[in-house]
């Protein structure tokens, strides 16, 4: 597997060596069609382990679509067709042998709008561990829930009302609850689809801080409309335009010295 991967890599990516060293996810010539619409065109991109990668680009550019390819959430859309290869730790996640349930336990997701279950705060966080049978007993489950809430920076605010409905929290708290829920499964990668777009600046700042902390343990991919956010939280940035990956590189380089004119135009606010 490694060998074939290697040869593939050489044909598709520039920085082969570095990618093989640290790439967690490698997408190669990934295409997505929604019925007749070609939404994602030949995207080849590496997501590096232990880094925050941000996807930026104007609305409808395919960044969310690509994000949803990484945990096969696009499977749930009937008219959606994905082709090409997406490797995670060298294994094709679109291989028929791969179980999508397994994959999603490894690749967690946080959505644009906070979507806690209409259950208690505790049950929200315990949901993943319960369905996957991660905790052997009640004590272990308690431990997982508390640690996850702690890591999501929510524990202090909710520890006295673990039985209160998760839907009763504020927007920012709900989103952190969703993050706690995602990390309770101990995934390797966390995908975030515009996690702050429904939040006020203070809640946004808290989430950004959190993302920075989570980087130590998780590989994070974040889709964002805010270029400042991308600059603040990510180490690598990928710019999408009309379904194509225009440019990918270190965040600093993308924002200070973009190679492509389109990228430059977008980050300086000339279009988008």
């Amino acid at each position, binding site marked *: 597997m490694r060998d074939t991967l290697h040869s593939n890599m050489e044909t598709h990516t520039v920085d082969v060596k570095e990618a093989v060293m640290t790439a967690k996810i490698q997408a190669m010539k990934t295409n997505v069609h929604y019925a007749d619409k070609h939404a994602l065109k030949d995207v080849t991109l590496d997501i590096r382990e232990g880094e925050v990668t941000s996807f930026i680009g104007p609305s409808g550019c395919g960044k969310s679509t690509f994000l949803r390819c990484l*945990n096969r*959430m696009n499977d*749930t859309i*009937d008219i959606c067709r994905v082709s090409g290869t997406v490797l995670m730790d060298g294994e094709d996640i679109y291989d028929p042998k791969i179980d999508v*349930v*397994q*994959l*999603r*336990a490894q690749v*967690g*997701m946080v*959505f644009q*709008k906070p*979507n*806690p*279950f*209409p*259950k208690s705060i505790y049950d929200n966080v315990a*949901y*993943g561990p319960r*369905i*996957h049978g991660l905790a052997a007993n009640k004590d272990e489950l308690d431990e997982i829930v508390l640690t996850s809430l702690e890591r999501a920076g929510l524990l202090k605010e909710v520890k006295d009302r673990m039985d209160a*409905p998760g*839907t009763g929290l504020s927007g920012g708290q709900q989103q952190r609850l*969703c993050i706690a*829920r*995602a990390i309770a*499964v101990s995934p390797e990668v966390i995908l975030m689809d515009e996690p702050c777009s429904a939040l006020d600046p203070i809640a946004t700042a808290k989430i950004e801080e959190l993302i920075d902390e989570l980087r130590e343990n998780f590989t994070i991919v974040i889709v964002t409309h805010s270029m400042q956010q991308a600059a603040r939280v990510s180490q690598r940035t990928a710019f999408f335009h009309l379904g194509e990956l225009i440019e990918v590189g270190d965040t600093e380089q993308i924002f200070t010295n973009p190679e492509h004119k389109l990228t430059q135009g977008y980050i300086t606010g000339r279009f988008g």
Partner: protein
Amino acid sequence: MTDVNSATATEGKLSGGARTKALVAAGIQKRYRAERRFRMYGLVAIVSALAFMLLLFVNIVGKGYTAFVQTEVLLPIHYDAAVLDPSGTQDPKELHRANYGKIYRDSILGLFPDVQTRFEKRKVTGLVSSGSGFEIRDAVLENPALIGTQAEVWVPASDDVDMLIKGHIDRNVPEDERRLSDQEIAWIDALDAQGRIATKFNWRLMTAGDSREPELAGIAGAVIGSFLTLLVTLLLSFPLGVATAVYLEEFAPKNRWTDIIEVNINNLAAIPSIVFGLLGLAVFLQFFELPRSAPLVGGLVLTLMTLPTIIIAARVSLQSVPPSIREAALGLGASKMQMVTQDVLPLALPGILTGTIIGMGRALGETAPLLMIGMVAFIVDVPGGFTDPATVLPVQIYIWADSAERAFVERTSAAIMVLLTFLILMNAAAVYLRGKFERRW
């Protein structure tokens, strides 16, 4: 449009905000008038709907409330051992067969010693219900020690006496136009003067099966029949309907076949219920040779009728579960089954329950398909099981409404009141359940 044009012409010199303000001012009264008119229409619609409902209730209750009491006659009964137990063995079989009619007939004739002719004797004994003999028999069978004793016993009056006491027979109409002759009325008044006539709560209406004699007829058979039929319907249609809805909504691929199935389910909901009755007759009775008039078959037929209602209601409430909840579950790696059972179904349950109860309400009020499978038969016994012959409340109403006796009019209304009470309770339960499940979050 013309308003705007003329306004533009007259206010042509005004520009920007001033012009908008003038145009709004010109049209504002008209808008408010339209709103007031619309509110009025709504009010009229609601008031007239309520008025008709009130009229219906007043009519039914007004006609029916008297059925809850029954006129009874106090007779000095002599449990004559020579008549009841000539052999003196107190053998239950003998006791069962004894001539109890003679007991109550002798008793009432004893109250009118002047009556001599056979014709008049028959008239006098006809003042009390022919069911009195059975009531005396039941009392004797229960307590054979009564034999040889005497006691004052309340027995049901005949339906004509009942109607006279309740004021449904007018004493002022000419004798040949009313059910009771002057002589009979005189006897009744004589009994009344002795304090031998009273109206008592009509337990028979609640505990007896159907009867040709209105004063003995009750709705117990129909209520039990309805209950058994609905139980079969609920046990079959709820799981089937929910499973169908869940499969179609969550698991089935969206293709031409599922489209065809969907169209057919919607069509099924619109099929006249009598057609389901014919289907039940052909399939369940002719082909599977299930028993006629049985709650089991009634329940099967009503299941066919209720299924589409439940499926449609369940699908709508499944669809109304926000996609974000599904994404949250799937994103955490829940399998489809886990997503459905843990997240989607609990959220859809209030809607499914409401739909089910409304479907059951429809099934409870259904008459036509049950006529086709023989549930319209005259059945005296209260059904004891799913395969016993039975009838249901609406069919009982239909049978009584069709009966000639004046006393069945009030009983028809009383049965309608009972049916409506059940329907109102079911709808209230639907509202309560919906509120309860939704309030949890």
